[in-house]
């Protein structure tokens, strides 16, 4: 059955994300919270995370572009991103944020610029896998809906 093959693909993808450290245990918590009554929960949370992250990354880029960097504003945004990534289980992004905050504390511009690049890199890497994940999920859902009709 096609849905089974898709499920296997999805599981494989998620497992590899765990193995690579892109995701941590918190993501499993989210999966546990998804059930029959809330089939779209993980997708919703992942989508929210991506929207929120991109908004923050845009602001961070602007702030870092300033001649005189406002480190407290930068830190506030990184703190938000760290929180969201922690809540969704985005381990590498979270770790990159922790590093970034270190540099903020030291008012280290070069360090911050590098740290922002690492955060972006980790985020976009995660996002493309999330996109594949959500595509697979919605294809599986479509099959299961057809089955029920």
């Amino acid at each position, binding site marked *: 059955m096609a849905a089974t093959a898709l499920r296997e693909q999805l599981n494989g993808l998620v497992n590899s994300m765990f193995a690579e450290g892109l995701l941590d245990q*918190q993501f499993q*918590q*989210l999966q*546990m*919270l998804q*059930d029959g009554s*809330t089939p779209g*929960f993980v997708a*919703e*949370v992942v989508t*929210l*995370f991506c929207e*929120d992250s991109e908004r923050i990354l845009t602001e961070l880029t602007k702030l870092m572009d300033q001649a005189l960097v406002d480190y407290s504003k930068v830190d506030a945004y990184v*703190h*938000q991103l*760290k*929180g*969201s990534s*922690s*809540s*969704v*289980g985005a381990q590498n992004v979270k770790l990159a944020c922790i590093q970034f905050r270190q540099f903020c504390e030291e008012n280290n511009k070069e360090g911050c610029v590098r740290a922002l690049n690492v955060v972006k890199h980790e985020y976009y890497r995660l996002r493309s896998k999330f996109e594949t994940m959500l595509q697979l999920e919605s294809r599986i859902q479509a099959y299961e809906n057809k089955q029920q009709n």
Partner: protein
Amino acid sequence: MAVVATETQYRVLAVDDNLLDRKLIERLLKTSSYQVTTVDSGSKALQFLGLQDDQSNSPPVSSDQHVINLVITDYCMPEMTGYDLLKRIKESSSLKDIPVVIMSSENVPSRINRCLEEGAEEFFLKPVQLSDMKRLKPHILKGKYKEQQQQEVLQNNNNTSSNNNSNKRKAMDDETSREMTRPRLTSSLTVL
């Protein structure tokens, strides 16, 4: 006479400025069979609880008449922190018995102690887990017990025929009549 016990639905007010975290805590609470209301700031929480800025002692009933059995709030929020919210709740005569739990992504012992000293029941480290939800019930029940005790004290005082302190009685009468007219949606087991 047989009394039918209905499953008591407790309502939790969750406060967090982060949308993702609000979604998460809502799902955690609903999965654990709580009714949930989420707000994105301390000031909105106070509004919901019926405590306006003038600190009027209105009962903890929101505009849509729901009783709040527990408040769970993030610590780090702009404008009003979870700690500030906690203080306001504990300073309010009408709200002080509502249990408050603080959540934070940072494990700062001095912060935790400060909150506990101010009357927070517990401190959850974020990300909050499903297993943390089990720790809420005892605090809710303790809050309800305190509430019931307060009501009993008021009723006893009203029942005593001789009461030297007429001022005190007047104040309590006001509060009792307010308590009685306030619609209560939580079901409690009344043994007749």
